[in-house]
């Protein structure tokens, strides 16, 4: 890499850095501000955005080789990480390769869970932080804004983001297949365990109308209800009130089925024409399997949900190859526009358009 300023990427992610190292590398907003202060205008880093998530810490900016090395040194010093440790995990790319890497990250192709959506928001936050702090200049503005467009295109036009890949989200997708929308659905959570709580939160985030918690220990039900902003109900009442709910999530440690076929049948008589969705996350199971034989009753257990999640994950992996072709093409187009301008502006346009087809260079 020459010392002429160019667009670069420097960092480490779950691909190369173990969790223990990632914990040390993670940057808080305060530390980002400190790092910016330490670098100062004389460091030669013209523009800089910092992406720090639980799986990656990455710097995107405009600088020459010397300035990037200085950034690396300051970063290691600030985090108390030995330079050699960081060097063993670091990834570095410049020019079109760096653009391609950023696009892969924003589109969720570089994520641990391929296609996940959260990273897109985190990249947006990193850009917003850089813009607000005056650290984003014409190159970062252009690159990030185009990257957001292209990442959306990739997510929409390939299958990398299709299908839920976690048990909780699969349950929510199934509920959407049954009810269309969740704003009129009432959810009953049987048990106050962690997996039930996660599933309830997933329903809440998709707008479920109301959640009620019933646990064998009323105190635990009330605690969880407080956390979720939900209602609590005595456990013995749950089978009686079943017909009032659209979605029932079972996650108790009860040794026998909590909801029998007869209880489900009685509930269905109280709600003609309206489906009832049972999600049984408990082992041993909370819902009697025979309940699934009833009309308009849909019963999914943990294995069913896991199978769907696995199938979706496999389908996403297949789509990654298609998405990478788009990444290469879009990154090359973008670098063709930016590279020459950067070079004319006194920077060396590192990485010709064609170089974007190569994977980012590992440090």
């Amino acid at each position, binding site marked *: 890499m020459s010392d002429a300023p160019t667009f670069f990427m420097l960092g480490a992610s779950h691909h190369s850095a173990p969790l223990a190292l990632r914990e040390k590398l993670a940057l808080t907003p305060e530390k980002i501000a400190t790092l910016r202060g330490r670098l100062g205008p004389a460091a030669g880093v013209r523009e800089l955005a910092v992406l720090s998530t639980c799986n990656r810490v990455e710097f995107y900016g405009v600088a020459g080789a010397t300035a990037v090395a200085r950034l690396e040194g300051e970063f290691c010093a600030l985090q108390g990480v030995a330079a050699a440790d960081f060097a063993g995990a670091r990834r570095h790319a410049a020019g079109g390769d760096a653009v391609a890497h950023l696009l892969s990250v924003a589109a969720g192709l570089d994520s641990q869970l391929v296609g996940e959506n959260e990273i897109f928001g985190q990249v947006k936050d990193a850009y917003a932080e850089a813009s607000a702090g005056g650290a984003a200049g014409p190159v970062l503005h252009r690159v990030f804004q185009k990257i957001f467009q292209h990442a959306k295109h990739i997510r929409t036009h390939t299958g990398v983001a299709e299908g839920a890949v976690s048990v909780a989200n699969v349950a929510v997708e199934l509920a959407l*297949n049954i009810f269309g929308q969740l704003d009129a659905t009432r959810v009953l959570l049987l048990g106050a365990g962690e997996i039930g709580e996660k599933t309830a939160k997933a329903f809440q985030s998709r707008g479920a109308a109301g959640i009620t918690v019933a646990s064998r220990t009323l105190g635990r039900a009330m605690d969880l209800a407080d956390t979720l902003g939900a209602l609590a109900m005595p456990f013995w009442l749950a089978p009686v009130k079943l017909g009032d709910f659209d979605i029932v999530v079972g996650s108790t440690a009860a040794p026998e089925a909590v909801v029998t076929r007869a209880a489900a049948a009685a509930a269905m008589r109280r709600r003609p024409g309206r489906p009832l969705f049972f999600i049984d996350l408990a082992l041993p199971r909370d819902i009697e399997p025979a309940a699934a034989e009833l*009309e308009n009753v849909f019963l999914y257990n943990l294995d069913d949900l896991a199978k769907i999640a696995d199938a979706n994950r496999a389908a996403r992996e297949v789509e990654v190859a298609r998405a990478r072709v788009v990444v290469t093409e879009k990154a090359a187009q973008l670098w063709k526009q930016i590279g020459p301008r950067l070079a004319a502006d006194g920077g060396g346009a590192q990485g010709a358009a064609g170089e974007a087809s190569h994977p980012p260079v590992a440090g």
Partner: protein
Amino acid sequence: MPDFTDRQWLWLAAACYLAGFALGTVALLRGRRHSRVAMFLTLAAGFAFQTLGLALRGRAVKGCPLGNTFELFQFTAWSSASLFLVIGATFRVSLLGYFTAMLAAVLTGVSLAVPAWDAAQRTHIFGANPWIELHAALAVFSYGVFGLLALTSAMFLLRNYSLKSKHVGGWFSFLPSILDLDHIGVRLLGAGVALLTASLAVGAVYWVPHPETVNVAKLLATIAVWLAYAVALGLRLGGALPSRRLAWACVVLFGAALLSLAPVNSSRHPPASATTTPPAASEARKP
């Protein structure tokens, strides 16, 4: 505008419906959702061509073109397509366009492929009484509603199967939710029964004073279809007919309703003023 005959416009319409069906099939085979806009435009083009064809035919037969099996099938397909253009846009029911294209392609394609169904075109079949014409048009339009209902019911059964058997991926994922399909089905059933009831009421005004003009077979077939749908609606609203059974009933009833068109059509006694024209002599063109 090209100087096409009615049948040529109707062939064009059938080609559009077939293109819509092909568009949806290719998308499904590729595991993708078809373009909603492309499907809508294809069906809208088919509907426009069919409207032109039926309008020319209507001028030629001096009334609503419901005089033979060919015309009845065409009118039913036209009704389904017109309803999709309204419902499809309003409810944004995924795959409904695909299924409508399939139904319209089958109805129009089969009717065009069987020359015997259009062997004789009857003119002035409604005489000078516009109420009878309205009665017939409403009845056949209600069949179009029932056609669309059969489609949404088939979609409901597929969605129900996918959820019960836990095969929710692939093209099953493009189906609307089971509750949406159920709601749309009940609304279509209500609309179809209302239209058929209105049709029978209008017809009764004429036929009750002149019972000798009514063919018993036709009367029984029509009332049986109306009664079956009305009972299904009543049971559903009363909570006595679960959604899945209602869906099966609607699919089977539409098949029966289509079959009933044959006795209804063949039992017609053309009024004294009605005439029969061989198709070669009557191929209608824009005047």
